[in-house]
C-alpha cells in the first residue's frame, strides 16, 4: 500500500538507471545511512561497536569481494581468507617499512598486492572451472598461510608470524575509540560498496555476468574471457585485501597467519550463498545473518532463562544454525536477498492483490 511506485515516472535514461529507482527505497536507504553514520556512533555501547558492528562490516566487505568473483563472475573460490591475510600483512609491512605513509594509501596498496596475488592464483581459471577451480584456489589458502609463517621477514621476525597492527593515524588524528574506528570502517565499506554497485551496473559487471552465464556467447560477442576473469580475480582480491587490512587494524589489532584459515574462507562463502549470489545487498544480509545468528541464539537462551550446561548450549547453537542454513537454502536457493526482493514485489500490490 505504501510501497508502490505509482506516479513515479521515469523521463530519462539517467532516471531509469539509478541504483534505487523507487522513491521509497531511496528514503529508506537515506534513513539507514543517517542512522549508521550519525545515531549509532553516539548511542551504541563500546561492545556493540567493536564486538559486533565493526567485525560485521569488515566481514561484509570480504563477502562483497567473494561475491564479485563467485556471484558475479561465476568463479568458485575458497581463497578468501588467504587474500585477507595478504591484505593484513601487506598493510602492516607498508606502514612498518615506509615511515609516514598515509594509512589509507597503505590500505589501498595492500589491496593492490592482494589483487596481484589474486591474478596469479586466478590464472588456472582460464583452464578449469567449477569444483576443479575451487580445488586450485584451495592451494592459495595453504600456500599463503605457509608463506606468512615460513618467511619471518613478512611479520618483522616475530615468533610464529604474529603481527600487531600499528595505531591508525590519519592526518594526525588517531583512531583509537570504538566509535571513531567504527566510522572509519563504515566509511570505507560504504564507499567500496557504492563503487562495486557502479561497476556491476556498467559494462564491467555485464562482462562478468556474461562470462558466468554463457562463456561461449560472451566470447563471441566480444568480451575477452581472459581479461574479464582476471579482472574479476583482481577486483575481488582487492576487496578481500582491504577487508583483511581492516580486520587487523580496526578489529583484532593482533593477527597471526593461522587466523586466516580455511574456516574463515568457508564462512564467507556461506555468507554469500545464504545472502544471495550476485547481489550486493545479499552480501551484507548474508554476513549479518551468519555473524549475528550465533549471538542472537546466545541471547535468546539467556533471555528465556533455560539452564543447560555450556557445552550443550554451544552445540545446540551450532545445530540450530546449521538447520537454519538448510531451511533457507531449501526455501529460497537464491538467498535472503531474493526473499527480500519477492517480499517487496508482493508489498507493491498489498493489500489488494487483484
Amino acid at each position, binding site marked *: 500500500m505504501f510501497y508502490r511506485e505509482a506516479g513515479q515516472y521515469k523521463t530519462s*535514461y539517467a532516471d531509469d538507471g539509478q541504483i534505487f529507482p523507487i522513491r521509497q527505497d531511496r528514503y529508506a536507504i537515506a534513513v539507514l545511512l543517517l542512522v549508521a553514520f550519525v545515531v549509532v556512533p553516539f548511542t551504541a555501547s563500546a561492545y556493540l561497536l567493536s564486538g559486533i558492528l565493526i567485525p560485521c562490516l569488515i566481514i561484509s566487505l570480504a563477502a562483497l569481494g567473494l561475491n564479485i568473483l563467485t556471484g558475479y563472475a561465476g568463479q568458485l573460490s575458497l581463497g578468501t581468507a588467504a587474500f585477507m591475510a595478504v591484505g593484513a600483512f601487506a598493510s602492516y609491512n607498508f606502514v612498518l617499512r615506509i615511515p609516514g605513509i598515509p594509512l589509507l594509501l597503505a590500505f589501498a596498496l595492500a589491496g593492490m598486492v592482494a589483487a596481484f596475488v589474486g591474478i596469479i592464483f586466478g590464472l588456472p581459471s582460464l583452464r578449469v572451472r567449477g569444483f576443479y577451480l575451487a580445488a586450485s584456489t584451495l592451494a592459495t589458502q595453504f600456500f599463503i598461510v605457509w608463506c606468512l609463517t615460513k618467511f619471518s621477514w613478512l611479520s618483522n621476525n616475530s615468533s610464529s608470524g604474529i603481527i600487531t597492527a600499528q595505531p591508525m593515524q590519519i592526518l594526525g588524528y588517531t583512531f583509537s575509540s570504538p566509535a571513531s574506528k567504527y566510522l572509519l570502517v563504515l566509511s570505507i565499506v560504504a564507499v567500496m560498496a557504492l*563503487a562495486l554497485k557502479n561497476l556491476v551496473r*556498467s*559494462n564491467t559487471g*555485464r562482462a562478468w555476468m556474461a562470462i*558466468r*552465464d554463457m562463456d*561461449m556467447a560472451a566470447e563471441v*560477442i*566480444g568480451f575477452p574471457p581472459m581479461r574479464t576473469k582476471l579482472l574479476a580475480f583482481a577486483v575481488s582480491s582487492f576487496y578481500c585485501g582491504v577487508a583483511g587490512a581492516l580486520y587487523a587494524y580496526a578489529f583484532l589489532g593482533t593477527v597471526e597467519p593461522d587466523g586466516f584459515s580455511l574456516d574463515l574462507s568457508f564462512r564467507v562463502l556461506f555468507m554469500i550463498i545464504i545472502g544471495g549470489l550476485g547481489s550486493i545487498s545479499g552480501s551484507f544480509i548474508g554476513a549479518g545473518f551468519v555473524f549475528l545468528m550465533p549471538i542472537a541464539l546466545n541471547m535468546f537462551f539467556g533471555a528465556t532463562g533455560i539452564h543447560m550446561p555450556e557445552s550443550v548450549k554451544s552445540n545446540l547453537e551450532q545445530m540450530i544454525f546449521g538447520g537454519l542454513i538448510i531451511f533457507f537454502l531449501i526455501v529460497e536457493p537464491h538467498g535472503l536477498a531474493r526473499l527480500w526482493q519477492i517480499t517487496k514485489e508482493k508489498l507493491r500490490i498489498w493489500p489488494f492483490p487483484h
Partner: protein
Amino acid sequence: MSERTIGGVILDLRNISLSFGGVKALTDISFDVREGEVRAIIGPNGAGKSSMLNVINGVYRPQQGQIAFHGKTRHDMDTHEAAAQGIARTFQNIALFKGMSVLDNIMTGRNLKIKTNFLQQAIWWGPARREEIEQRRKVEEVIDFLEIQHIRKTPVGRLPYGLQKRVELARALAAEPKILLLDEPMAGMNVEEKQDMCRFILDVNEQFGTTVVLIEHDMGVVMDLSDRVVVLDYGRKIADGLPDEVRGNPEVISAYLGQAH
C-alpha cells in the same frame, strides 16, 4: 525504406576443411557472401552448417583454407577479431545470459563500443555515466525495432521461447554488425512467430543493409527470404546458386529425399 542493393563480395571462404580428430566436418568448401544479400546455408542434419558458421566467426579454426573478409585474407578467424570487424551471430540453442534482464542482455551487444575503463565505471559520475546513457539510447532503438519494449526489465529466463529468440537477435543487432549470422532463427517456432521473425530479418536487411547469413530448415522460409543458397551434405558443398536453381538440382533432391536404387 531504402532500395536493396547487393554489392561486391564481402566475405569469401576458400577451400575450407575442418576435422575433429578423424571426423571430417567440412571438406574443401568454398563460397562467397555479397554485401547486402541474404545468403542461406541449408542441408540435412549433420551436414556441417553450424560448423561453417563457427568457422566464420572464429569459434572453430579450420585446418585448411582461407577466409577473406573486408579485403583481408587470413587462415582462420579469431572470435574477438570477428566481433570487432562486425560479425555478430545468434545460436541454434539460445545462448542468452540467463541471470540478466533483457535490457542488460542487449546492452552486452554494445560492449565493443564502450571506451571507459573499469576505474571510470567504478566512479560512475562523468564519462561512464554519459557513455552508459548514450549506449542505452542505441539499445532502445533496437528494442523499438524488434517490438520488445514491454519486456525490457524482465529476466530473460522468464520469457517464452519465441521472445528469447527475438532478444538474442536484438543482442546481435545491438552490435550494429556488418554481417549477421543466424543459426536456425526459426527453429521450434509456431507459424505466427516464424512470420514475425521473417519480417524482422527482412527489415534488418532492407533498412540497415545488413548482410545476413542464415541456416534454416524450413524450406518455404529459405526460398522466400534468401537471394542465394548454398547446400551442404556430409561436409561437402553440393550446390550453390539462386533458390530456384537449387530447388531443381538433382543432387540436392537426392540428398534430402534419398535416392532410388
